[in-house]
């Protein structure tokens, strides 16, 4: 009973505290949602307008600017302008609540430290992404090789680089990896060398072989006149005289040039009567005095 009494005496006090707490919350909510409602609506409107404005400007840029400037310049520019407008909108929207730009930057700084510890890898990718955009060892549309991935750069974002491989797959590589790997960019020079090796028979006319290959290179529209094509003997190998044919071609048509020359090479050599030999082995006997018995056996007898 005593307990019951105690409960009975305490209960009214509890109810009173809860009630005042609820009232206080309701007051606060009223203050936020009713008293400041116009300000919140205004802020929301500013953010919505800024997002629409950013989308509109992005659309305008895509229509008028995208075709006129290189993709590697356009893409980061578009991203930067889009986010700049949105961030500006957010800053303007928050200013009536007493949140200033410097406050945001400070808050961002603290948040940065906290997030930094939590997401070191992502930050490393972000920093590498920024360095990649500044240094530009690769650009959107460039044919490249990074580590063992080879293809065309499809997109460079702040965290990762996406490459469309030659067989049509999209490979996402974290920017940190891209930045620390050896990057081979196949299009940064104005010309790229086409290198082809071919073996001709030892009994073939070497000068003729060199001349027909040289003529093939000279007549190819993509083999540059300067630096001039060259054909030379690279090696006297076991079965053939190995010739090397070289010419320079503009990078966008390098592959076309290479496969066209490789395909035509056999035809022009055949037409010139130059033989491309199979691997062969000549057997010389030191002592030829002893008879060698040879038995020709039909395959069926085996």
């Amino acid at each position, binding site marked *: 009973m005593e307990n019951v009494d105690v409960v009975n005496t305490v209960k009214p006090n509890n109810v009173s505290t809860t009630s005042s707490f609820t009232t206080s919350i309701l007051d606060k909510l009223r203050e936020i949602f009713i008293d400041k409602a116009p300000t919140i609506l205004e802020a929301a409107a500013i953010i919505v307008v800024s997002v629409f404005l950013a989308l509109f400007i992005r659309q305008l840029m895509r229509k008028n600017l995208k075709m006129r400037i290189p993709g590697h310049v356009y893409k980061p520019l578009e991203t930067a302008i889009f986010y700049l407008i949105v961030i500006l909108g957010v800053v303007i929207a928050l200013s009536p609540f007493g949140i200033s730009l410097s406050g945001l930057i400070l808050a961002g700084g603290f948040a940065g430290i906290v997030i930094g510890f939590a997401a070191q890898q992502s930050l490393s990718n972000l920093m590498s992404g920024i360095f990649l955009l500044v240094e530009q060892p690769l650009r959107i549309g460039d044919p490249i090789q990074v580590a063992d991935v080879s293809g065309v750069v499809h997109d460079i974002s702040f965290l990762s680089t996406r490459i469309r491989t030659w067989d049509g797959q999209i490979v996402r590589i974290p920017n940190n990896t891209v930045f620390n790997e050896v990057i081979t960019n196949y299009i940064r020079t*104005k010309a790229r060398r086409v290198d082809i090796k071919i073996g001709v028979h030892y009994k073939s006319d070497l000068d003729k072989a060199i001349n027909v290959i040289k003529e093939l290179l000279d007549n190819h529209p993509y083999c540059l006149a300067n630096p001039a094509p060259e054909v030379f003997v690279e090696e006297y190998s076991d079965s053939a005289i190995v010739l090397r044919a070289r010419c320079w071609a503009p990078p966008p048509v390098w592959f076309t040039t290479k496969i066209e020359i490789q395909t035509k090479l056999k035809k022009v050599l055949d037409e010139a009567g130059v033989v491309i030999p199979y691997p062969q082995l000549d057997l010389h006997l030191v002592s030829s005095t002893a008879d060698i018995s040879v038995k020709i056996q039909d395959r069926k007898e085996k």
Partner: protein
Amino acid sequence: MDNNILPLRLRRGNSIKIGEASIEYKDDGTLVACDRYGCARAVVEEEEFVDIEPVPSIHRLYMETTYIYVDFTDRVYVSGKNEIYWTLAPIELEVGVNGVALIRLAPSKIKLTLIGDLIEGFIARYYKAPIVHKLDDLEVVSGAAIVGFRVKGDPVFLPGIGFNAGLVTFYRDRRGRLYYPLITVNTSGRIVSSRPTDSPPLEDLEAISTRRVDKTRLFSLAQSSPPFVMSIEVIRRQPIPP
């Protein structure tokens, strides 16, 4: 130009050959145009004629450059005293209907070259042609137009000239010969820079080309291309010691 004066109109049921290019406009409206690099077909509805116009030789086989470089068959000494010289540069043929380009053809062999080094240099359409001091001495071949250029500056041995042909106008004389606009060439030490002017190389020439190519690609390429500048090898004579 094979006795064909450009630009010209080809009526249905006719064919024409200019240099290594051939164009056949069949009775059923099929247009078949070929050059040494391949053939293209188009079907033209309800048009009696197709137009064939000369355009600068920068479109075939793919548009990599708007520069043309003419390599002289002989190096020539130029005094740089504002003299005019003559050479040839390649052209292409544009077949179109009512201002719409359908097919472009190369009436001569296509070759490209690198001007400058691999990193900073640029690609140009390559053509080998003679250089003469008197226009009458120049033998005009099929698939090429006459280029007159005026050289000012230091005396040099000139191996060739180049120019940005992206937006040039063609001219024609009374004999039907085609001309690129006058090119001005400035020589200063090892540097030779040249650019096309808006003027014909001779008086009494008729401006003929009304360009109708895809202006966005060509225009941006031609606009972004600076004047043709190359450095040449200069052999200085050693001073005789006193």
